[in-house]
């Protein structure tokens, strides 16, 4: 092996930007009048799991719940699915 230089100074390939901690979206003071959306991630039995969650949530909250079968859970994926059609 040959030393390329007396001292080698190299640069770091990683992302060094400090985004800070991810912030939670603002929480509403009340859920009255709100609609809860439960979106499947398309994994096996995810819809059954969400259905069970919906039934339990309905026991404690007077809230409308919408189940979505669309596996694509973000706007990005929605756009992708439009392109797939």
């Amino acid at each position, binding site marked *: *092996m*040959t*030393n*390329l230089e007396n*001292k*080698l*100074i*190299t*640069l*770091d*390939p*990683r*992302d*060094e*930007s400090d*985004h800070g901690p991810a912030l939670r979206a603002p929480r509403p003071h009340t859920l009255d009048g709100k609609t809860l959306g439960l979106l499947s991630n*398309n994994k*096996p039995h995810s819809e059954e799991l969400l259905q069970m969650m919906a039934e339990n949530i309905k026991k404690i909250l007077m809230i409308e719940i919408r189940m979505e079968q669309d596996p*694509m859970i*973000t706007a*990005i*994926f929605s*756009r*992708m699915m439009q*392109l*797939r*059609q």
Partner: protein
Amino acid sequence: MTSPNLTSLQHQFADWEQVQEYYLASKLTDGLPIVPPTETRVQAMLEYSGLAPDQVIGFESIRQKQITAEKVAINAVMAGCRPEYFPVVTSAISACCEPVFNLHASSTSTNGVTVMVLVSGEYAQEIGMNSSTGLMGPSNHANASIGRAVNLVKTNFYGSVPQEMDNSTFGHPGKYTFCFAENLEAGIWPSLAMDKGFDNHSSTVTAVAAYSPLQVSVFGGKDPDAFLLGIAHAMNGLGPSASEVFVALSPEVTKYVDDAGWSRRQVQEFLWKKTRLPAKEWISWCRVEHPDRFPDKDQLVGCVAEPDRITVFAAGGAAGVYVDVIGSWGNSRPVTRKIEVRS
């Protein structure tokens, strides 16, 4: 050479061996030795493309990653790229950041896909890329290092480290490198770049979240009506959930198609029609995750949704009657970008 504009953290080592040990121990390589990314080498990369270090090459929205030219250049140096390869690397990274490419899921999922980098146009020849014999294999410097650079950006900058954020069940040999060029000399139709609407002097790079290539021997004579059936059969091996399929015809197979006077569109439509099967057949082979989404079990379902999702092109060496079939992961769409070369 001083590089006041470069802002990346610096590391100091006594020798080459120390560099390798540090980058390997820090999981900043693919397991193979790297070219030490010195300021001089990184600056040469940037200067070739005329890019400022803080120029944003792409923004990945899920992890909020802003990928700068400096970081891409560092990884390209590590991969062994020459400066003239850098425009291909930056275009590929830009393509990967397009939301429909779905970089986050494709580089973290248990599904073992990698970024396939397909280059079309004169620039591939200018930088010495291999589009001929063994184009998907080793030995060509440009093919090897460009594909490796894209993967190093994905692991080092984006954080898709195998066994950490990358949970691919089996992995993929192309996670080391998977880059090649369209064979323009053997081609009988407009280049893929022109097919995408670019002019005949433009070169493009297409990034694909690709499964492993499946090589298919061509039997049944020289009539496309016959031998393309075998290709359709192989495509059906992907199941009905690929977003697109790339079909590389060897030069000899390309000549068969040319002799028969078939257009690219004819090949696309033939393959698409022949891959269509009743939903119940796909279901009977357990190739459908959600059978209930096909209420009409006699509905014809293709390997892909439409003929345009089948990209047909010439590639490979003169000897051999083969076709390579490469599927694009269903939750990702391939993205094509023009390669911007500073004149």
